[in-house]
């Protein structure tokens, strides 16, 4: 079905189920219990899960398949956000034209940058993309202020023309983003016993788009084009010696992944219509690299897992502060509690980036294949143990 093999179809089905039932799955604790702070089932965070999922899926098409490590992918995300917000300002508050423009503009931008950067490979490529991204970031902050609104970030105002829509609502406010009238912030709350589940229109739109993006990425992975990209990763020199020009293939991969990033940026602006230059900073580029690596570069599901993992822990870790830590450890004697809290508070709250950096180092050092490889290793271990048990059973000790 859908041109997929059975295994991929199952994977797609599992992801679809997870995404559709996410408001339930991410809300395992009753709303007023002490564990409610570990719930992640609220619209803002769920939107971020799927949007960064799209970003990471796109990055994986470039890095996972061709091995080209781009350190400037956040630039495309930023360009996508800016173009979407301009669409809201000039045309209408409907998200569809905004998203389409975001994808097109970032695709063109990626083509320009890719055309130059892909002349070099390896570390040169990483540095060229980094240079381009920093250049865009600097320009967005300085000269391009009429387009990007500099440090304040691009926002909607009451004076925007919005040719096809309305400049202001009848009550005099700025209109909200919508999908043919369905407001993105519309949320249904379902109260079930102690639990309250939230269903958000914006989330489901993002989720639908992510499923399409995921499907396209599976098709790319399984296509002859994907095979060619893998060949580039394993030995580009040999490909060149067979008389094949690899650059069109790598450029296509670069543009596709740039368009994915633009799509993510457009969605981000659709959920919350503002865009700032900090989205283009190279730490943002580093984050998507980390998501992909953490989940497992070159695997289908890895980037989605990595994005979810990082965004979830970012949210949880940033919420914890010293008082919470004291609450957790207060059963311990004071002599242990104080140093334990002292150590732990480095890693939580605003120290989340420290945890992120450490995680980065640990994953690259010990688990280069990411979570997917970790899962496979555990699976193999369990299976082997089961087999060895069987073996000992069949041959008695004495």
């Amino acid at each position, binding site marked *: 079905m859908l041109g997929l093999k059975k295994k991929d179809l199952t994977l797609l089905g599992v992801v679809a189920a997870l995404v559709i039932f996410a408001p339930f799955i991410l809300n395992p604790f009753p709303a007023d219990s002490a564990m409610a702070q570990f719930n992640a089932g609220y619209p803002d965070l769920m939107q971020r899960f799927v949007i960064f999922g799209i970003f990471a899926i796109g990055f994986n098409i470039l890095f996972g398949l061709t091995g080209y*490590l781009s350190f400037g992918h956040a630039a495309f995300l930023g360009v996508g956000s800016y173009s979407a917000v301009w669409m809201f300002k000039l045309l209408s508050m409907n998200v569809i034209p905004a998203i389409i423009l975001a994808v097109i503009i970032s695709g063109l931008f990626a083509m320009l940058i890719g055309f130059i950067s892909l*002349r070099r490979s390896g570390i040169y490529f990483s*540095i060229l993309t*980094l*240079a381009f991204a920093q250049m865009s970031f*600097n320009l967005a902050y300085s*000269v391009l202020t009429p387009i990007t609104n500099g440090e304040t970030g691009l926002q909607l105002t009451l004076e925007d023309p919005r040719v096809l829509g309305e400049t202001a609502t009848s009550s005099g406010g700025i209109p909200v983003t919508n999908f043919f009238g369905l407001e993105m912030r519309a949320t249904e709350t379902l109260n079930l016993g102690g639990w309250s589940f939230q269903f958000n229109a914006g989330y489901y739109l993002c989720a639908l788009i992510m499923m399409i993006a995921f499907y396209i990425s599976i098709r790319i992975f399984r296509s002859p084009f994907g095979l060619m990209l893998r060949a580039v990763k394993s030995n580009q020199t040999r490909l060149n010696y067979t008389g094949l020009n690899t650059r069109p293939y790598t450029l296509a991969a670069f543009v596709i992944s740039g368009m994915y990033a633009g799509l993510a940026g457009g969605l981000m602006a659709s959920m919350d219509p503002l865009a700032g230059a900090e989205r283009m900073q190279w*730490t943002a580029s580093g984050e998507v690299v980390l998501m992909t690596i953490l989940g497992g570069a070159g695997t289908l599901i890895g980037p989605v897992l990595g994005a979810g993992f990082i965004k979830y822990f970012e949210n949880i870790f940033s919420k914890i502060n010293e008082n919470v830590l004291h609450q957790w450890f207060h059963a311990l004697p004071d002599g242990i509690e104080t140093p334990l809290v002292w150590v732990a508070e480095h890693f939580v709250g605003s120290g989340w*980036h420290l945890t992120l950096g450490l995680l980065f180092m640990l994953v690259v050092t010990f688990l280069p294949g990411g979570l997917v490889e970790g899962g496979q290793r555990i699976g193999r271990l369990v299976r082997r143990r089961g087999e060895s048990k069987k073996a000992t059973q069949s041959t008695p000790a004495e």
Partner: protein
Amino acid sequence: MDAIILQILNGLDKGSAYALIALGLTLIFGTLGVVNFAHGALFMIGAFCAVTLNKILNLSFETVDPSRTDFLGNPMVVKTPYVEGWFGPEVGASIIDWSVPLSILFCIPIMLAVGFIMERGLIKHFYRRPHADQILVTFGLAIVLQELIKHYFGANQIATPAPDVFRGSFDFGAMLGMDPNVIIYPYWRLVYFAFAALVIGGVFAFLQFTTFGMVVRAGMADRETVGLLGINIDKRFTIMFALAAVVAGMAGVMYAPINSPNYHMGMDFLVLSFVVVVVGGMGSLPGAVLAGFLLGILESFASMNEIKSLIPGIDQIIIYLAAIFILLARPRGLMGRKGVMED
């Protein structure tokens, strides 16, 4: 003419910083073959060595001076730094005044230790891994170091003044026999340039004229053969890594008065330093130094008002534009050799 001299002078101090960091990066790359994204963090740690020493020297004890009163009429509490108590007020005050140059001595053991631990603890395991892995792990390390500094020193810039003698400016134009007040140049920037020239000269002399340096150069050219000759080349490369860390650290210490240290200064310099290394040619020490100064001067020319009014925003992107142009025209960089990083 005077405008040109002024811009060249302005470019020198930034160029010196680029050259010093790029020199360290190239040393590490040439010896160990590792792409070190944490090198900017080493530069930042150096700058914070200066901040720390300044803070330590300013540690004070409090005494009550009954002869003076504060604005409430109580006896005034006078803070005296310990060093003034120990060495007498005059010597103590001048020690505090000279805290930045003194920090160089303070930073050398620290940077040696940091470099040594980094190489033995982390980088060692990445010699045989792909460059992408090296970039990623050192990128993670850079984040960790940066966040630790942020945790202990805060996110704001910390002003670290240069010694009083060097705080002013001097009239460079008058010295050259031109009109006075045309080329005014701060003393400390000249000190920074002289210092950078000294360090760069020292590193080159060390590599060129000592037996140790000769072995290291041989190892850079052909690591395997040097190993086969019975020389423990790994040990020497570890020392070179620590040395590169010291160079970055000293560059950071001396840069503290020019630009007050903050936790992300390392990252800001790192991106540019990598561009410098690539422009100079991967693995070429003279190339790194040359490109550092060239790009520094280019940047200061681009920030002239005449040029900025012609092409707005050019000062922000000139280095990246130059890098793109050079990489496309001369893919190996200005002085890159064949066979280095040609994957």
